């Protein structure tokens, strides 16, 4: 139970103490308060699920039964029929006071389990303490049977048999990257232009598909020839899409029926009865038809997201709600005044809560790397319209205000800043940050539009529709720009680049020759020899991951496939191909660079102390590293304190950082995705810096095996940014944020007391303008004081609602491991 503040505590006092969560509780409506508290928290606490959270076994069972039954069908049809069976039979529920419905489990406390994704995840589930529904013995038996059925037949198993065995083993060592190269565990952009801007309900799409089938049948019933042969497969795919769309409409109408039954037979409160009837009407209308009210607009979107998540475990939630729901909001709230702004705010708040509720069982690496959440639901706000004009509207403000009322850790917002954003909007953005939410992160819109055009050739108008594909990477929501299948598997554990350069490619942690043999570092005579070894390791590491992902992408229609996602994507509806096929996809890939900054700090330390000043030899260094710095403490301190560190506006190390990035950027253009586009680097970490802490060995920046890695993509090491925030921004500004990579994550901790009041806001705004002048693409803030965080460590019960920015996402402070908490506290509080 969360503790309560003294009853008589005034809002002003709470503000002074920065206990924003109590303020939210006082200010939000009774409905929002109930809905917010009724949610079961699905995010892992460190690496464990909270007590009471159970895995849903009904859906995997329903799915497996039908999957087995339809075993002679081609992949897409087989999946569609199995999913339709799930949608027809899975138990559904409506939360009290809710106005929006749809959950990807059969009960509110359940985690979805994607049973056909990877055998090893299924095995983890069997071995995981605490998540089996009662009675445990019966559940274990069910899981064992399901696992036996799927063993060797999941998407990852199928891919692993095709991969080069060396790549497969090295990828699965867990040392160089993470993720699972299949859309079963990917995340998909949604074709919002098709559904919302072009106003297609599912019935409209069914008509489009029927037209396509008719045209195809003209071919299959006409003169024989080789050109008509692929058409037969496409017709089956269209059939699969139709099955999904019809099943989805029926699924929504099950909610309508339930709401109507509740209203007519059980509900005694006339107001709630009216709400339930409106809910019933809403679910009858959407997703069958394009939405005609604000509530329908949100409900349509939520159904789409839930259906996509029933089909695959999606690790992210690309969305731009203030842009795509604006027409209905404008109609209902501003033009026709069908609902009040307060009522709209309730809907927006609940829309966030419904997303917060969503959770699927993730393997341990995912839980550790995304502590406290079940995926990076980063919603995009602000930005520009296709013609370049300011897209911020009253719904943008409503989202920013609702966020402070419901205070969920997930979804978070990324705000597309540009010079035309009005002061009114900036103030709301700042209020969210000041209230310690850690979001929105601020994104430099003009720069990122340029970046999207530079790397992936998106035309200007399309680039301007971009949303966060996951935490950071911009991706358009258009027919050819939308990315239906992004796998986290091209996520590089970059610190291994410098580690392998020093250890001749051998990994002392996982006991394996990993990288190429680039030579005994003890014999290196110059820094350039070391740097050449680093470059070779970098290329090898990125290549291994990208080969794996490319093959996963190419084989996915066969090994997994997405009938529902295809059905809501213009490209697939038009072509009859599974949307995960690379055909027609412009290609929007990037390599997520975890643990990146250690490379620059490590290389700089070796250059300075070994090659330039010759205070230590390579022998000394390698001996120290092999002993994990044990017995070399004084030397370790020299490598920390006497070598320049990234983030202090020091050209010695900043130059090495830029050189490394340019080396990667050059390679990015040499490697291609299945659509033929480049693979730029995107340094960021989520909480992978903690997950990898016991997997990356000792490094010349003074880090030991076990220590948390640096937290950001280009953030300085915690406590190593000695020259203040301006020096941090100046260092970061030396990177070309268009040509050197895809995007660059920067964490900053700000002092809450210094940013109080109007003066604080003006200073922050000046800071943001300068950040933009220096050409940075991203910055996000923690504005919770050390005192509060320390108090939360001592007395977690009382501080359940403290939210912090971890990396590309926010989490409740009490839900992350001690090591991660300490890592956040170690970050320097920047006095601006």
């Amino acid at each position, binding site marked *: 139970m969360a503790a309560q503040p003294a009853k008589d505590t005034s809002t002003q006092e709470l503000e002074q103490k920065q206990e924003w969560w109590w303020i939210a509780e006082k200010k939000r409506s009774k409905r929002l308060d109930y809905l917010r508290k009724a949610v079961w928290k699905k995010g892992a606490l460190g690496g464990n699920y909270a007590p009471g959270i159970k895995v849903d076994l009904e859906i995997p069972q329903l799915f497996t039964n039908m999957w087995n039954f339809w075993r002679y069908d081609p992949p897409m049809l087989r999946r569609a029929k199995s999913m339709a069976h799930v949608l027809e039979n899975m138990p559904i529920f409506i939360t009290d006071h809710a106005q929006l419905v749809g959950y990807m489990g059969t009960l509110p406390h359940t985690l979805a389990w994607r049973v056909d994704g990877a055998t090893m995840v299924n095995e983890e589930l069997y071995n995981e303490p605490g998540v089996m529904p009662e009675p445990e013995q019966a559940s274990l038996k069910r899981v064992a049977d399901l696992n036996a059925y799927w063993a060797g037949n999941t998407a990852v198993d199928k891919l692993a048999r095709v991969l080069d065995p060396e790549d497969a083993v090295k990828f699965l060592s867990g040392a160089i990257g993470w993720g699972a190269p299949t859309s079963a565990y990917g995340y998909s952009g949604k074709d919002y232009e098709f559904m919302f801007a072009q106003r297609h309900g599912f019935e409209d799409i069914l008509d489009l598909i029927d037209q396509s089938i008719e045209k195809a049948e003209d071919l299959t019933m006409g003169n024989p020839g080789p050109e008509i042969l692929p058409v037969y497969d496409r017709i089956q795919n269209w059939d699969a899409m139709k099955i999904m769309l019809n099943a989805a409409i029926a699924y929504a109408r099950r909610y309508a029926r339930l709401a109507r039954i509740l209203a007519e037979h059980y509900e005694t409160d006339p107001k709630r009865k009216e709400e339930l009837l409106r809910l019933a009407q809403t679910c009858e209308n959407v997703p069958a038809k394009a939405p005609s009210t604000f509530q329908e607009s949100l409900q349509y979107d939520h159904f789409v997201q839930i259906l996509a998540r029933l089909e695959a475990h999606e690790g992210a939630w690309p969305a731009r709600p203030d842009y795509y729901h604006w027409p209905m909001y404008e109609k209902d709230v501003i033009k026709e005044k069908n609902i009040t702004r307060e009522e709209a705010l309730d809907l927006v708040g609940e829309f966030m809560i419904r997303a917060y509720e969503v959770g699927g069982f993730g393997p341990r690496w995912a839980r550790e790397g995304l502590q406290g959440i079940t995926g990076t639901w980063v919603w995009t706000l602000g930005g520009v319209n296709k013609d370049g004009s300011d897209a911020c509207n009253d719904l943008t403000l409503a989202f920013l205000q609702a966020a402070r009322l419901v205070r969920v850790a997930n979804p978070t917002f990324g705000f597309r800043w540009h010079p035309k954003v009005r002061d009114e909007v900036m103030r709301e953005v700042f209020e969210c940050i000041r209230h310690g939410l850690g979001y929105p992160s601020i994104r430099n819109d003009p720069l990122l539009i340029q970046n999207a055009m530079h790397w992936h050739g998106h035309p200007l108008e399309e680039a301007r529709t971009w949303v966060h594909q996951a935490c950071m990477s911009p991706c358009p929501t258009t027919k050819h720009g939308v990315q239906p299948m992004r796998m986290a598997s091209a996520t590089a554990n970059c610190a291994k680049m410098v580690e392998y350069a020093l250890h001749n490619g051998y990994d002392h942690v996982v006991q394996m020759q990993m990288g190429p043999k680039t030579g005994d570092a003890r014999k290196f005579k110059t820094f350039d020899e070391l740097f050449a070894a680093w470059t070779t390791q970098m290329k090898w590491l990125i290549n291994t991951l990208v080969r794996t992902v490319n093959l996963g992408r190419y084989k996915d229609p066969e090994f997994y496939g997405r009938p529902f996602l295809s059905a809501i994507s213009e490209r697939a509806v038009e072509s009859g191909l599974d949307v995960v096929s690379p055909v027609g996809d412009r290609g929007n890939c990037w390599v997520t660079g975890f643990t990146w900054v250690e490379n620059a700090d490590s290389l700089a330390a070796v250059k300075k102390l070994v090659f330039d000043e010759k205070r230590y030899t390579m022998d000394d260094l390698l001996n120290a590293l092999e002993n994990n710095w044990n017995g070399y403490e004084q030397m370790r*301190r020299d490598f920390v304190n006497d070598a320049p560190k990234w983030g202090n506006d020091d050209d010695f190390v900043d130059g090495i950082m830029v050189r490394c990035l340019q080396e990667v950027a050059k390679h990015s253009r040499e490697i291609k995705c299945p659509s033929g586009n480049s693979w730029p680097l995107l340094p960021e970490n989520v909480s992978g810096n903690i997950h990898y802490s016991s997997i990356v060995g000792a490094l010349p920046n003074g880090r030991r095996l*076990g220590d948390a890695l640096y937290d950001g993509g280009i953030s300085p090491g915690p406590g190593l940014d000695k020259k203040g925030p301006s020096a941090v921004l100046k260092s970061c500004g030396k990177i070309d944020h268009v040509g050197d990579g895809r995007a660059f994550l920067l964490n900053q901790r700000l002092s809450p007391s210094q940013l109080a009041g109007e003066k604080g806001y003006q200073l922050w705004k000046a800071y943001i303008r300068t950040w933009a002048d220096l050409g940075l693409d991203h910055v996000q803030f923690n504005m919770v004081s050390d005192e509060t965080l320390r108090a939360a*460590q001592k007395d977690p019960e009382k501080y359940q609602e403290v939210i912090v920015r971890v990396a590309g996402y926010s989490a409740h402070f009490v839900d992350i491991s001690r090591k991660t908490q300490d890592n956040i506290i*170690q970050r320097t509080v920047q006095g601006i």
Partner: protein
Amino acid sequence: MKCTECSFEAPVEKFRYLYNARIDASISLRQCPQCQAWLATDELAGEATQKVGPGEAPWGKSAGIEGLAEDAAS
């Protein structure tokens, strides 16, 4: 090094290394293999400074034992 809790004595590297207090300070967290207590350890001196209980932390910035290592530049 000697465990401040159970007096187990062994070379410092026998104590399981957990993580650092701050990368630029010589205070780290180690775990005693005998009694499993978390110990704040002075790496320069090779001595266990004190036990770190649940909800506590070994250095200045964190809850529990304030002042063993300096806070980050503020």
